[in-house]
C-alpha cells in the first residue's frame, strides 16, 4: 500500500491554548495510569528513586543505608528506612488517527485539532522524569511510526507528526487501527502507556489486537467526537457523503422519527464501544469538539 499525501484540513483551528498549569495538573493522573502497566514491583533497568512515599518501616539487613530516615530513627530509637514508590522510565506510545473522518467538526474546532491537542498533552507528560515518547499515525496508508526517543527530540517529532494533517477524502481503510495496534505490540517490548486518540468510526476488528496490546501495556483510549455526530439537527432534507467511503445518502431531518432513530443508534454505538473498552480494562475518555476538551481530559484523568 502506498503512502497517502497528508494535508492539514481546510478548516483547521488548532488545538487551542495548552497552559502549563493545566498540564501539570494532569501529570499525576497520567503517571498513575502508566504505572498500572507494570507488573509487581520488581526492579527493572533504568529504575530510579521517586519522591512519593510508599512506606516507612524498620530497617532490615540488606536495605540501602542511604534510605535511613533520621527523624523516625530519632523518635523511636530503632533504625527506620523510608521506601519510595519506584518510578520507572516508561515509554509512552501515542497513536493518532489521521483518517479523513477526523477532518470534521461543527463546533469550535475539528476533531483533528482536538486529537492534536490531546497528543501534545500526553507527549509533554510522557517526557517528564526521563520517560521515552514514541508515536504512530494510522488511517493514511502504512503507519508512520516514530521510534521511542526522549525529551525535546521526541516532542518535536510528535508535533511535526500531528501537524502533517489528515488523509484526503475518499481514502478508506477499515483495518488501519488493527494493523497499527499489532505493529506497536510487536515494536514496544517494554511495558508502558499506550494512548489511542481516534473517533473509533469505520474501523473493524481492532478489539483483538487491542487485547493483545493490553496484555502488556496500560492503554488509554481517547475518543474524539462531534455533537452533530450524535444528533442530527432539524434542517430539512440533506444529502450526506461519507468522507472515507464516498457513500451518499439522502435523509429528511425534519422528521422527528428519523432524528430520534439516529440518536438512538448513535447512543447504542457509543455504549457498545464503552462496554468493549471496559471489558478490556482500557481507560476510556470521551472528548468533544464543542466545549473545553482540556478541561474534560483533566476531569477524566484525575
Amino acid at each position, binding site marked *: 500500500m502506498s503512502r497517502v499525501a497528508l494535508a492539514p484540513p481546510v478548516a483547521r483551528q488548532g488545538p487551542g491554548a495548552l497552559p502549563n498549569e493545566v498540564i501539570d495538573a494532569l501529570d499525576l493522573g497520567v503517571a498513575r495510569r502508566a504505572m498500572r502497566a507494570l507488573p509487581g514491583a520488581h526492579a527493572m533497568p533504568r529504575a530510579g528513586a521517586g519522591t512519593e512515599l510508599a512506606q516507612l518501616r524498620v530497617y532490615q539487613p540488606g536495605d540501602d543505608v542511604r534510605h535511613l530516615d533520621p527523624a523516625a530513627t530519632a523518635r523511636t530509637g530503632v533504625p527506620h528506612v523510608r521506601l519510595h514508590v519506584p518510578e520507572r522510565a516508561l515509554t509512552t506510545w501515542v497513536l493518532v488517527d489521521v483518517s479523513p*473522518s477526523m477532518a*470534521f467538526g461543527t463546533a469550535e474546532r475539528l476533531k483533528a485539532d482536538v486529537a492534536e491537542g490531546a497528543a501534545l498533552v500526553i507527549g509533554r507528560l510522557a517526557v517528564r522524569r526521563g520517560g521515552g515518547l514514541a508515536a504512530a499515525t494510522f488511517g493514511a496508508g502504512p503507519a508512520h511510526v516514530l521510534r521511542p526517543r526522549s525529551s525535546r527530540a521526541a516532542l518535536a517529532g510528535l508535533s511535526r507528526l500531528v501537524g502533517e494533517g489528515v488523509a484526503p*477524502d475518499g481514502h478508506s481503510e477499515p483495518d488501519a487501527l488493527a494493523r497499527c495496534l499489532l505493529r506497536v505490540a510487536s515494536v514496544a517490548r517494554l511495558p508502558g502507556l499506550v494512548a489511542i486518540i481516534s*473517533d473509533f*468510526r*469505520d474501523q473493524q476488528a481492532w478489539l483483538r489486537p487491542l487485547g493483545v496490546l493490553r496484555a502488556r501495556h496500560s492503554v488509554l483510549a481517547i475518543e474524539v467526537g*462531534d455533537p*452533530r*455526530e450524535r444528533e*442530527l439537527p432539524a434542517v430539512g*432534507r*440533506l*444529502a*450526506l*457523503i*461519507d*468522507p*472515507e*467511503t464516498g*457513500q*451518499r*445518502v*439522502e*435523509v429528511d431531518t425534519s422528521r422527528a422519527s*428519523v432524528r430520534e*432513530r*439516529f440518536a438512538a*443508534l*448513535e447512543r447504542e*454505538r457509543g455504549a457498545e464501544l464503552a462496554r468493549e473498552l471496559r471489558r478490556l480494562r482500557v481507560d476510556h475518555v470521551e472528548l468533544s469538539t464543542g466545549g473545553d476538551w482540556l478541561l474534560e481530559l483533566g476531569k477524566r484523568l484525575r
Partner: protein
Amino acid sequence: MRFPAVATVKLVVGTLPSWRRHIPTALLIAALAVLALALSGPRTTVSTPIGSASIVLVTDHSGSMEATDVLPSRLDAAQRAAHTFVAQLPSAARVGVVGFSTQPDTVQAPVTDRAPVLSAIDSQSASGGTDTGDALALAMDLLRQGAAHGPSAIVLLSDGAANLGRDPIAVAGTAGQQRIPIYTVALGSQDTTIPDPTGFGAPIPVPPDPALLQRIADASHARAFTAQDQGRLNGIYKQLGGQLGSVRHTHEVTASFALAALALLIGAAVAALRWSSGRIP
C-alpha cells in the same frame, strides 16, 4: 455535505427502497408519452344500441327438425337459441317471429314486448315440409309494415332444402334491394336420419343444405352460418343479437388522453416532492 456518521444514517434511512427515487421520472415520461398519443387524435369505436331496430326470426319447424343430431333435438336447440337471441337484443328493439313448415303458420309481428315472441317460439312443433320462400316473403311484409322505424334484419334458421313454394333466392334478391339482410343459419350434420313417420320403411336422411342458405345470404348481402351443436348455435345467435341491435361508430377520445397526461404530471410533481429530494427531474 461531508458527514462521518453516514453509516448510521444509512441504517436509519435504509428502509426506503431505491426504486422510489425513479418514480417521478417514470411518471413524467409516461405523461409525455400519453400526451404524444393524445396529439395523434385517437379514436375509438363504440357500439351503441339502436332502439328502433326490427328483427324477424324465421324458424323452420319441418318434420326433419325432430332429428337428434343436435341434442336434445334440432327444434329444441333452435328454440333455446332463439331465447338467447331475444335476450341479447336491446330492450327497445322490436322482434317478430315467423314459424314455417309446409307454410308459414306461426306469425308474430315485430313488437318490443318479449312475452308473445317467446311464446310464439315455444309453440312450434316439428312436422311438415319446408317452404322457405313464402316464409321469407311474409317476414319482409311484416318488416315493411313497420319500415319507418330504423334498420331491419331477418334471421333464417333452417335445416333442409326448400322443397315447396316460391324460390327463396328470388325473395332474397328482393330483400337485398330493400336493404333487409337475411342472416342464415344451417342447422344439423350431414349424415342424419329420422325414422320413417309411417313406421314402416327405411329411415329418411335429413341433411342440411348449407349451399342454398349461403346463396340466400349472399343475395341479401348478409352472412351465413352453420351450426352442428347447441353451443355453436347459441354462440351464433348471441353474436347476431349483439350485432343487429346496435351500430358502431367512432368518436375522438383526445380529451381523456389529455386528462390522463395531466394526472400523470401532477402525480410526478407530488412524488418528486415527497420521495425525491424536492427536485423535479
